[in-house]
């Protein structure tokens, strides 16, 4: 007997045959195929109780109500709240991607102290007690040196309890330097003061739902202007009821594309067109005589000035719009039976506008009697629900102290805050007149024009405390970061300043537990005030922020907590008889032609004009974009890490450019390598760049993508209001 090769073959064949009669191959195949479907790195989201909780979005001034879908204690989705008076169920891209802000990689997860050079990004974490103690030490030193006004604070707004707590702390401490992020509302509120003669701050409101002719002077009606979701809904309603919207702009923005007509005036001549229209309306006697006669002052002088300087021929020459079109537009705007309405504030309204333009546009509304009437422009009394914001002793504490930005001074009496003037004020002085800066819900190092100067100015401030929840550009320049809870983790009242035709206060609620070692900025302020003691400490009689909020909201608290908002459903603006203040209690027309600053840059060196392009898909405010929203940015705006510039093909060819190819864009402030996208929808001679890209902070989903508009464009100060009214800059572009 010999065991040879064949025997082993037989063994093998036997084994194979035997295996075929076992379940092994079939079972193994099945199991392996299941195994290939279950990679451990492919997450399996945990199931559980699904339910909705309500809150309010704070990512822009729009004030939308949100429904937060939760699975157990996780937020998996944010949807619009159907019952909310602002957004009625609609929601924008950024609002939906809120969970990515909550759980995302850009959050500051604990208090941090800078351990390297500014902007180097080296941080060490410290405890909340140590962090607050450090701030207190420095505050006490300022107090001891009698330099309390050397403390400044920047917030996104002055509305609501949290900004007011900051403001109160500063005031009681002895500093008037509370500043807010600029926006078109600054201009509108200055206009209301000047023309409505009211000393108290009024909110501008627009009764868009009842209007049937909208004349927009460059406002991005469906691109983030006002309360964005409400505006998009209003736009749809206009389509349904065949209302007309006319856009005055130099490029085919989405608003222009959706409008019934685009008037491409030469850039910077918007106010001229407005007054040209006013001229036609007055010459043809189309204005509302009841209003101008009994409820206004200065009308004859205004009429005189306008007919002298803005007759249609002159305006046609200035604006580049044909005479007959100006006349037709004016007639249409003023035609009887139409409820028409003119608006301004460019793009999203994230910058202020010139007083000349804002007053000209507001005069148009006044001429046709559309002030505080259905379908018109309203001055809305905002709910005065924070009694402690007005206490006399608070104001007494800063009596005699001067604001560094000169807002409210005899030079700029109608402005409340001029943050845009802060950098130059700091850079002008040898030593920074601001020794300590608080920044809450703001990112001036990114959102202010002229980034280099802003960063240089911040660099001179000895101590910066950022209250940011995210690692943004300003936090990057800070010495200490005291991260706030994000809006999904905290209580806060949100009075809406979005051009609504009625007062609305929303309540943002903690729909999840704080995910990281963060603290409500309201509580930090309370701790600081109590730590300072004396009259500052006494000014904060609340246990904690929630106590303050509940007591402040008083009767409204229950309703806010239950429904998420408070509003006055039946709100009606004051009738003409009681709406205006001033000496005569009347609307004040102005016959002054206000000067406009020139666009920065020499025409010879910089033959083109660079303007921003704003969109709902890119945030461009102090809130950075999320991975989801960045995903929606088209490749005609961002390609890889390169910004794409929009230019008219004719201009592009004149400049020797080719579609889709690389080029260098240069402005007096800097230069950047870009790609070129030829697009017919922009006026020849202009270039548009998306605003909101080019972040130098945040994480890899945002940082270093494209270029920042504000880094290439400097501020342009309005001689009347002192606000930055920059809307573009001279530029040139050349191929590489």
């Amino acid at each position, binding site marked *: 007997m*010999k065991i040879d090769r064949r025997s082993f073959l037989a063994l093998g064949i036997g084994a194979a045959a035997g295996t075929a009669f076992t*379940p092994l191959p079939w079972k193994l195949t099945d199991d392996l195929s*299941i195994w290939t479907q279950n990679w451990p790195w492919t997450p399996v989201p945990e199931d559980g109780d699904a339910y909705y909780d309500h809150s309010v979005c704070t990512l822009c001034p729009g004030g939308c109500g949100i429904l937060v879908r939760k699975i157990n204690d996780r937020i998996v989705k944010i949807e619009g709240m159907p019952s909310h008076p602002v957004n009625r169920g609609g929601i924008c891209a950024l609002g939906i991607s809120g969970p990515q802000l909550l759980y995302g990689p850009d959050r500051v997860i604990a208090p941090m102290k800078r351990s390297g050079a500014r902007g180097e990004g080296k941080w060490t974490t410290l405890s909340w007690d140590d962090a607050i103690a450090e701030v207190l030490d420095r505050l006490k030193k300022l107090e001891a040196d009698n330099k309390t006004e050397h403390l400044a604070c920047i917030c996104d707004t002055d509305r609501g309890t949290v900004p007011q707590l900051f403001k109160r702390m500063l005031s009681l401490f002895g500093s008037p330097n509370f500043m807010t992020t600029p926006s078109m509302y600054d201009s509108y509120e200055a206009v209301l003061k000047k023309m409505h003669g009211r000393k108290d701050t009024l909110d501008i409101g627009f009764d868009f739902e009842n209007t049937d002719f909208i004349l927009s002077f460059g406002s991005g009606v469906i691109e983030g202007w006002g309360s964005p979701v409400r505006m998009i809904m209003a736009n749809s309603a206009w389509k349904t009821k065949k209302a007309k919207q006319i856009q005055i702009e130099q490029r085919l923005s989405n608003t222009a594309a959706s409008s019934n007509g685009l008037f491409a005036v030469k850039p910077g001549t918007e106010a001229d067109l407005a007054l040209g229209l006013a001229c036609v309306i007055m010459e043809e006697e189309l204005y509302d005589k009841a209003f101008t006669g009994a409820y206004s002052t200065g009308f004859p002088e205004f009429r005189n000035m306008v007919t002298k300087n803005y007759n249609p021929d002159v305006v046609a020459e200035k604006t580049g719009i044909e005479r007959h079109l100006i006349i037709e537009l004016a007639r249409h705007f003023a035609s009887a039976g139409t409820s028409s309405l003119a608006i301004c504030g460019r793009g999203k309204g994230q910058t202020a506008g010139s007083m000349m333009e804002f007053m000209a546009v507001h005069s148009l509304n006044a001429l046709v009697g559309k002030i505080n009437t259905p379908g018109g422009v309203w001055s809305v009394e905002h709910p005065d629900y924070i009694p402690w914001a007005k206490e006399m002793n608070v104001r007494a504490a800063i009596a005699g102290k001067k604001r560094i930005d000169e807002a409210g001074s005899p030079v700029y009496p109608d402005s409340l805050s001029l943050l845009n003037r802060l950098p130059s004020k700091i850079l002008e002085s040898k030593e920074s007149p601001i020794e300590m800066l608080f920044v809450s819900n703001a990112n001036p190092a990114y959102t202010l024009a002229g980034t280099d100067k802003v960063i240089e100015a911040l660099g001179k401030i000895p101590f910066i405390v950022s209250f940011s929840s995210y690692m943004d550009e300003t936090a990057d320049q800070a010495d200490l970061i005291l991260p706030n809870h994000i809006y999904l983790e905290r209580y806060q009242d949100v009075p809406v300043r979005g051009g609504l035709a009625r007062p609305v206060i929303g309540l943002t609620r903690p729909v999840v537990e704080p995910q990281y070692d963060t603290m409500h900025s309201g509580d930090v302020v309370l701790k600081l005030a109590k730590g300072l003691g004396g009259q500052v400490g006494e000014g904060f009689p609340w246990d904690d922020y929630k106590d303050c909020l509940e007591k402040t909201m008083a009767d409204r608290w229950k309703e806010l907590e239950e429904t998420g908002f408070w509003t006055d459903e039946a709100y009606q603006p004051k009738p003409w008889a009681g709406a205006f203040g001033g000496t005569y209690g009347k609307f004040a027309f102005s016959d002054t032609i206000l000067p406009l600053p020139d666009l920065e840059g020499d025409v010879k060196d910089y033959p083109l004009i660079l303007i921003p392009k704003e969109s709902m898909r890119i945030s461009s405010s102090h809130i950075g974009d999320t991975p989801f929203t960045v995903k929606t940015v088209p490749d005609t705006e961002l390609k890889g890490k390169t910004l794409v510039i929009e230019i008219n093909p004719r201009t592009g060819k004149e400049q020797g450019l080719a579609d889709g190819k690389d080029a260098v864009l240069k402005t007096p402030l800097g230069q950047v390598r870009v790609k070129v996208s030829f697009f017919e929808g922009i006026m020849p001679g202009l270039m548009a760049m998306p605003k909101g890209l080019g972040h130098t902070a945040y994480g890899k989903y945002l940082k270093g993508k494209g270029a920042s508009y504000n880094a290439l464009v400097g501020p342009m100060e309005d001689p009347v209001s002192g606000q930055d009214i920059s809307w573009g800059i001279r530029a040139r572009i050349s191929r590489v």
Partner: protein
Amino acid sequence: MTTSDHKAKGDAPDKAPKGREGSSFGIIVSFFLIGFGLSMAVGWIAFPKLLYSEKQQPFDFNHAIHMDLVDEGCESCHLFREDGTYAGVPTLDQCSGCHEDAQSDSPDEEIFVNEYVANQQEVPWLIYSKQPDCVFFSHAVHVKTAEMECAECHGDIGTSESLKVYRENRITGYSQDIWGANIAGLKKNTWDRMKMDDCGSCHLERMGSKGPCFQCHK
């Protein structure tokens, strides 16, 4: 050329005698049978033992005792949520209602009360019927609309006095109950297996079609 070479080799005087050829055949057959037998043993006996690892539940649970105490059968604890979704294994909150303190002297209950209720920690039960993430299964339509009994798919677990050993498939990570105890996949009862084919055959039989993919997948 090659042919002749081959022929030359074949003609070589290396031929085995006839008798030896016969015994060689026997050896081959027996090797074949050994191989056959070994692989049969591996496939039917060793493989199932190797394939599954035995895991213990955190503590034992007596379904029978609980069934006696409740009024609405399985649904008393295995609830439907308001939105119609099925909540699965009861949560700690549900159990704590009765088990804030021990109700008996059972050592298992003691573990539950001391380790889980006291620490407010959910019990990490091993779920015998757990399906992959891609499966969507609506208990509502089966139990309420089609009025099927729980036991039809889950067997007589409701009357059991203790939990059986959880056998986890080492490759897939799912319980042995999905493929069934029989390694050949044969089943006697409707609850013996929970594979897609089992869903499909029942649907085919009762609904007339296995249904589209999205009926049971997500």
